[in-house]
């Protein structure tokens, strides 16, 4: 068998694929963060909690209403997105004129409250969410067994990421959005309802997090801590990609998933820190991040 640095080629391919799957979660979550930061200038620390809420809403839909995975993929992001809209109207909208730090503190506090509430209600062991019938089983690839539900995660997140990127970069709505972040007063003068635009943008970013949460529900256990565990990594991804850069967050999300996967093969102990090491290195060389524009 061919080996690379003592690791069989086949095992390596398997790990790369797994890295890509984890990268899908990073990409979709950091995309939401980048949109919210890029357009609203809010560092949304509630993102992890909103991801967790997505998974929990999917679980509740299944257990209390008998609504399955596929509908949950649509309904849970809508529900959590609506929660985001309310949050933005009630609290976040009041902070736009203040320093970034206020937004960070508010959203961080909200995340702690939300996670605490779920933890008190459901404990930390996690709730089981069965893999839907259509996605059970898997493909026997030459180098590994790929569970269908994980393969689906890659496909779904690629589609959502590309679609979002196209909307923001190529459509009129996206043009308004980008213009509104550059100069809200001017755009408002053209008759565009900027506050509504911002509210919907926040709601959409939150819905993206919830969508990732639904994707995660059958793969990991539905757990109040799942957001807290992943959010720091996702923030590192956003920083590496360049704060607010849409394309940067998607590309680095997938890329860092791959890097993490490789680390798990060669030096597993470092797999939880490798992303932060890369963050340090990138910031030393390019302080604005890989895809960021220097102001």
């Amino acid at each position, binding site marked *: 068998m061919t080996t690379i640095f003592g690791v069989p080629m086949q095992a390596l391919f398997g790990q790369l694929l797994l890295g890509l799957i984890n990268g899908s979660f990073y990409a979709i979550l950091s995309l939401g963060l980048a949109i919210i930061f890029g357009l609203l200038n809010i560092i949304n620390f509630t993102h992890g909690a909103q991801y967790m809420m997505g998974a929990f809403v999917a679980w509740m839909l299944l257990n209390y209403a008998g609504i399955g995975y596929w509908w949950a993929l649509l309904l849970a992001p809508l529900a959590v997105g609506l929660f985001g809209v309310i949050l933005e109207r009630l609290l976040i909208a009041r902070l736009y004129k203040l320093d970034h730090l206020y937004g960070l503190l508010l959203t961080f506090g909200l995340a702690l409250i939300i996670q605490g509430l779920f933890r008190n209600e459901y404990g930390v062991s996690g709730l*089981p969410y069965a893999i839907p019938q259509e996605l059970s089983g*898997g493909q026997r690839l030459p180098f590994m067994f790929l*569970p269908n539900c994980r393969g689906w995660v890659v496909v779904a997140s690629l589609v959502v990421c590309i679609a979002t990127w196209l909307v923001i970069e190529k459509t009129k709505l996206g043009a308004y959005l980008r213009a509104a972040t550059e100069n809200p007063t001017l755009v408002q003068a053209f008759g565009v309802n900027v506050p509504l635009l911002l509210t919907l943008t926040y709601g959409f970013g939150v819905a993206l997090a919830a969508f990732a949460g639904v994707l995660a529900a059958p793969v*990991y*256990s539905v757990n109040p801590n799942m957001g807290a*565990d992943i959010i720091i990594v996702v923030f590192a991804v956003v920083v590496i990609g360049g704060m607010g850069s849409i394309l940067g967050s998607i590309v680095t999300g997938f890329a860092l998933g791959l890097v993490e996967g490789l680390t798990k093969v060669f030096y597993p102990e470092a*797999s*939880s820190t490798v992303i932060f090491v890369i963050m340090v290195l990138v910031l030393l060389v390019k302080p604005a991040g890989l895809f960021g524009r220097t102001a």
Partner: protein
Amino acid sequence: MLTRLLAATALAALAAAPALAQTPVKIGVLNDRSGVYADISGEGSVVAARMAVEDYKAADKGLKVEIVSSDHQNKPDVGASLARQWYDRDGVDMIIDVPTSSVALAVSQVTREKNKAFVNSGAGTADLTGAQCSPNTVHWTYDTVALGNGTGGAMVKRGGTTWFFLTADYAFGQALQRDTTAVVVKNGGKVVGSVKTPFPTADFSSFLLQAQGSGAKVIGLANAGGDTINAIKQAAEFGITEGGQAIAGLLIFSSDVHSLTPKTAQGLVLTEPFYWDLNDATRAFSDRFAKAFGGKKPTAVQAGVYAGVIHYLKAVEALKSAKDGGQVVAKMKEIPTDDPLFGKGTIRADGRKIHDMYLFEVKKPAESKGEWDLYKTLATIPGNEAFRPMSEGGCPLVGKS
């Protein structure tokens, strides 16, 4: 005459009553209240400690018991500074529970410095009564040697001769791998590889793939709580058990199996010192516990907190003071233990509490009659076989006898 006599008796009784309630005891329940071990210990341990104080009728016996609790976040530095603060500033006499081996070792150190008492229920590392034993520490519920002995031995006897470990990368995981390896090798098995996983980890797929690639017959999970749950769930997803490899969960609690459900966990072999459905006494306690705690049955760790508090109070009652922790622990070792959950037992000179352990198998969904009907008993492992002989632990307190 009669009225005077009555009045005098009443006065005497009045004088005696405050004297009876004069021994203050402050117990600190220190554990994980928000992280991966919060369901195993957490608030449930506080409930168990309160039940112990009530059941012991401490107030009638002249003990004024107060319970405080805090979250050590699974961080040794946080645990050690909380312990120090409790002992120095808040007048805590005894700390109980403390899951997470690294934190437990740190708290044991502080307790010894301050000459207080530490009854550990939650942590696994056998070093607490081995190389790092202390005259102020009692290790109650289980330890890594007993787990390795139980599950490791049973798996090898079932034909699982080659092992690959997924090990949580901190004191507990390393101790569990070391102690299980010893049992596997002693029984004629072989360890073909291992991987150290960061603690905690949500995604075990990479590590499971390595374990799968190793071709080992048994994949040993030297982790606990949320880590174990994720690993078992994902092992099922990747078709590992279907492929003929067995999973050995070296430390699994009923709360973990409850979360996994028998559908995912069926057939798992595991070792525990306590299960709510063992006998009438454990069932009665567990029903009361569930009523007080949102319908959840107690885990072995919470049961250990209950039994540990009761035995500690016995020692304090005998000494009429909780102030000298070393003396209280010495007294705890002197009197034999007896409680409804673990039965009769002893505490050895090295601090190890001795009781039976049980080998369980997770029921199939069809066999399980209710949400909490999870295990069937495969074997009872007598206390003196389950735990490491004192002479092999290397505890400096007991010399090389």
